């Protein structure tokens, strides 16, 4: 079961919208002959995590966890553990066609 900051997610991330990606922490410049020069510091991962159909209490607990300053431990659906930080906003919105339920969506980057 996936978890963030020690809090098990009430539901697994929505498979239709969940994504993870890799990116290089790098700089690039064009040399005088046009060659693209690249210096890579590291390779890291990003996640887009939507969790849908939460009760109000579950939503509040999850938002509080995501608001924790500093790094968190993310256990992904595959069971792998990562050290991450929440990037940007963690948003909660009412679930469509399910009154009283909430969707929470957030993005994370590997530290």
């Amino acid at each position, binding site marked *: 079961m996936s978890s963030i900051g020690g809090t098990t997610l009430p539901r697994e991330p929505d498979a239709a919208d969940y994504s993870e990606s890799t990116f290089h*922490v*790098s*700089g690039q410049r064009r*040399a005088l*002959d046009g060659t693209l*020069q*690249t*210096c*890579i*510091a590291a390779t890291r991962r990003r996640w887009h995590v939507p969790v849908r159909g939460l009760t109000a209490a579950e939503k509040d607990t999850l938002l509080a966890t995501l608001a924790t300053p500093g790094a968190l431990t993310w256990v992904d659906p595959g069971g792998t553990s990562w050290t991450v930080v929440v990037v940007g906003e963690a948003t909660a919105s009412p679930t469509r066609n399910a009154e009283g339920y909430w969707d929470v969506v957030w993005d994370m980057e590997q530290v």
Partner: protein
Amino acid sequence: MAQSIAGTHLATTWAAPARVVAPLVEVCWDGASWTDETSRVLDLHIEAALYNPATGLPGLGGGRPATMTLTLDNADDRYSPDNASSPLHAHIADGIYRVPIRVSLGYAYSGTPERLRQFTGYIESPLAAMQAGAKTVQLACTDNALPLMQHKHSTALYQDQRADQLIAALLAAGGIGGAVLDAGMSVIPWAWLDDENLWSELQQLAQADGGVLYFDELGTCRYERATHWLEGTDHTTAQATLDCGNAWQMEDTLSWRDCYTGVIVERAPRYLAPLTDLYTALDVIEVPPGGSITEVCRLRYPAYSVVAPAAGTDYQAVNAGMAGMTSYLTITMTPYCQRAELTFANSHTVQAMYVLNFRLRGVPLLGDEAQEIEEHSALGIVPGSKIYPLRGNPYVQTEEQARRLAGALRDRLERPRRLLGWAGPACPWLQLGDRVRVVNAGAGIDAEGYILGKSQSYQAGDMWEMRLVILPAANLFPHAPYFRLGVSEWADPSDAAYY
């Protein structure tokens, strides 16, 4: 000289258009072991140069240690002296000053970091900064010259020493070991220090011999004599080719400021004079019963020798009633060239002693009238007269020194010198003085030269950039090939010899 890359793939990884940078920043907080602080480093910038734009080419090699600025993340107050919970608190509670630091940078090959040292020195001053969302500490660092920069030292008189021998002695006095020193090209008849700054005296010795002195990336002090760039593979063979494929910026400037019609070098000869008073005490020296005092006597002249003070000739030791107390007085003298430290000990347990009319005699070393050597260029490139004067270096004393310096400076300054600039991905093995080849086909440049200045910057998410200032080798040593003692041969050994 370029750092060795034997056993690494750095030549390959540097030449590749995409490369993984491998940094390592270590600090010796406790004076014994190195702590890896790399994960907190936000950016760094290193500067090293033999060339100071303020003094120009005449001042090549003079005076500037390498420096580094380093920004560290301090969100948890790890580097804050007031944070008693910091694991470093015991070492930084009184501030961060003269803490050893070393930085290695390179590239990874198949996931394995391959690094070379890029800076060795000390943290000189921290600057803590805080803004919304960020707490950082910026460290200003200086290379291993830092301990010498305010170290005052006095010596006895050195006679007939080469520059490298004097440099070795001063480095030893400053606690610096492991120096790599070329043999000096002249013998300096007289040399001494009188409470003078070790770093500035080392620079003057190097200049007097026509060489350069600096601390390299590994923290080793190097003295390279005037002919150093004619010797050694790193200065006769290009260590890297810098071209439009690995440069994002190239510059080409012509320095007319450093072009002269002639050079004047002043020398300051000295001579030994007859025995004379070197010091006379202005006051009576009072020595308590059973006690001792120490006097530091600044001598009137530098001294070739100091006569041990003799009772009756150089002083009278008496009590309050003017009765003699010579037998109770012991004088211990530590002579330096321009001062002497004397300890007066009174073994009488009851009576105070008064040392009257105390003086020190000795053979002084006096300065003769300064002489000048002039060398003028026959090239006629600069109209009129524009003379570069080299004056005020006390280690330029002989005609041979002055004439050699004047000739070398004339050769260096008689033409306007181009300075080539290159900026591109950092080449980790290059060091100051290394020979490199610069190719810019579009501008018609294909020249080999020597690295005078090197700066590098790095932060994650940006390039590890190196900027080089290069002095083209053309016409720098215009009389090549040179005959090298111990290396060159007068003739092919198979040739017939005629007697």
